[in-house]
């Protein structure tokens, strides 16, 4: 099925939880990634129970490398 990940269209397996999506997408530092699903930041406890749906908009947000997943600078960046 098709979803949007960080602004780009992506084909992912059907019925994935968010936790499984992180694995399938080989997301780097997955334990340090915040996930935004359709504009809502997910609680980490929900990663294993939230199932990704077709056309979902998913944002993986990083901050441990120096990227700005915190408030402030991110708000000033244009979204794709």
């Amino acid at each position, binding site marked *: 099925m098709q979803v949007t990940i960080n602004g780009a269209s992506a084909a992912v397996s059907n019925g994935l939880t968010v936790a499984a999506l992180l694995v399938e997408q080989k997301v780097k*530092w997955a334990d340090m990634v915040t996930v935004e699903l359709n504009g809502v*930041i997910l609680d980490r406890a929900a990663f294993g129970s939230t199932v990704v749906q077709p056309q979902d908009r998913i944002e993986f947000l*990083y*901050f441990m490398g*120096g*990227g*700005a*997943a915190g*408030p402030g600078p991110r708000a000033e960046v244009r979204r794709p």
Partner: protein
Amino acid sequence: MKSLPDNLHWETAVLHGGREAAPGAGAAGAAIAQTAAFAYDTAAELEAVFAGRAAGFVYTRLGNPTVAQFERRLAALEGGRGAVACASGMAAISAAVLALAGAGDEVVAGRSLFGGTYALFNHTLRRCGITPRFVEATDVAAYRAALTDRTKAIFVETIGNPRLDVPDLAALARLAREHGVALVVDNTAATPALVRPQALGAALVVHSASKFLNGHGTALGGAIVDCGTFDWSGPRYPHLRPYFERARQLALLAYLRHQIGRDLGGCLAPFNAFLLSLGLETLAVRMERHCANAAQVADFLAAHPRVQELRYPGRAAHPDHAVAQRQFAGRYGALLTLRLADQAACFRFIDRLRLAQNLAHIGDTRTLVIHPASTICRDLTPDERRSVGVSDELVRLSVGLEHAPDLLRDLAQALAA
């Protein structure tokens, strides 16, 4: 790289886990990203990393692959959610407190803190408007009495340095939790080889990684570990709320890196991170030997007629022995203090030692010795020295990894008339 088997003991995981393949050549040792900044081919890529929408590094003050490797390994050792490394232990403690408290707030701390931490709390942070409330380090009721609605942290050391008192971490964690206050534990002297404060309910662990974690006296460093036990959306920490909205359980780590670390700049150097990571690999075996040697030295000194008092948490006479026994599973660290007749006797003892190095440090492969009153605690007032357990007659030993009979022989000759 091959994937690792599941359910590895931490002693194995620290050797094999957390390493990222070095580019090219199959080097078995970790790579050192000795760089100030990180380049990207396109403006859009760098924008994405800055925006937090792509994994990557920007500038070593904010993050670095070698530093990140050390952070991940230490967080795993402590059983925490993640870690932020700092230039030194004091940088880590400053950052941890400033991440929780601001002007008008209070921190409740054990009275017998390491002198540097005591001075930070009592002078620098006080000047910033953060008021320390010092209490007897092992008296849980005293901590309870000192809590107010402005308290933002309870700060303790797993083994007070140099008073060597051992607070009951589980009891303090319960108290902190009841009040929605973060318990911050300095685990420098015990290390995760002896105790994981996370398992006892601590919110944060701080380290001077320069000591036992590095273990060889070759590099300064520090770290803050978020234990993953604390709800950072609580009402005591409204400044963390925007970070909680964006990062949820990672809120404190995000705040430490993006606000405190970015603004204060006390980052760990990549080469030091490499040395600290290397030290972590041998932590388990070193701590076993440190503890075994210290126990032998303690027995020897306690029986020596010139030693008026020997303080070591592993001895039954130590007031916190029962807590230490339970908390550290029968190991008691490498630190001990002895009291001699007077300062002159301490100086003679130190001067005659031929193996122990006379310097301001702990947690080296070699045995270290110091006279705290005239050195690391000389800036404290006499009252402050008493409260941190230091007198003119006190000598501190950090027992190293030497062959124990060699150490005992050296101690014996140094104490001989």
